[in-house]
């Protein structure tokens, strides 16, 4: 008979990864959108 694993480290790792990945995706999308729109505005001004 094997002893059951403590699930909490796995739960905490899943939540931390989920939140970090979502935050990174939101920031990357927002920053690349802002950069691209600023580049378009600069090209209009030339």
């Amino acid at each position, binding site marked *: 008979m094997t002893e*059951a694993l403590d*699930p909490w480290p*796995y739960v905490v790792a899943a939540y931390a*990864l989920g939140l970090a990945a979502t935050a990174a995706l939101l920031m990357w999308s927002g920053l690349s959108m802002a950069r691209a729109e600023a580049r378009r505005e600069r090209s209009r001004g030339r």
Partner: protein
Amino acid sequence: MHGFANPSRFLRLARAVMPWLLSPGLLLVAAALWWGLTRAPADALQGDSVRILYIHVPAAWLGMGGWSALALASLSELVWRHPLAALAARAVAVPGACFTALCLVTGSLWGRPAWGAWWVWDGRLTSMLVLLLLYLGYIALADAADRQGDGRVAAIFGLVGAVNIPVIHYSVLWWNSLHQAPSMGLATLSGRGPMAPAFVWPLLAATLGFSLLFGWVVLARMRAILAEAQAEARLRRMAIGAGE
């Protein structure tokens, strides 16, 4: 549908809709995960590891839903030549790949305490891994196709790849699997499904919250790709004008 093909009209709509996706999405995700982590009960058989459900299932839903949207946009690009369809398909690819990868990693973290294994080569896990590889293939193909000015190959790939979506869904019914059978459906919402309401409500809130954030990311990617294309076109016109 072609009314939204006008970039200015699309931009106006996207700018108006995006705040309504971001703030409610963040609030719902925060509330649902707090609920799932501290208030929802532990499962009778799996104990506290079931709390991974509130991240894993929305990630799976968005990975599969993302490819379904990508396939519809590819169809619209090929059949109706909708100008924003190619943009939408490309915008979905990266967040779709991210949520598919998140589904695989959180599934692995759930599998270790529940099954005693990080990974098993069964139908559900393998078809989900195939979905991630399809996303990566699409991103590479769309990038190469855009540089050559013909996006049809990427659109055909997006359409053909949709064959994997029903395979993922029915894999737990077609083949023997450690993965549980589908437990979400219309019967669940009426309280007659295999999942108890105490698990269902935080799961629905998390799925809706992550879906709103996914929508925000897709619109932000579409705006970024559109702005890049407009800046490139303007610089090209200026270069041609200067050369004449």
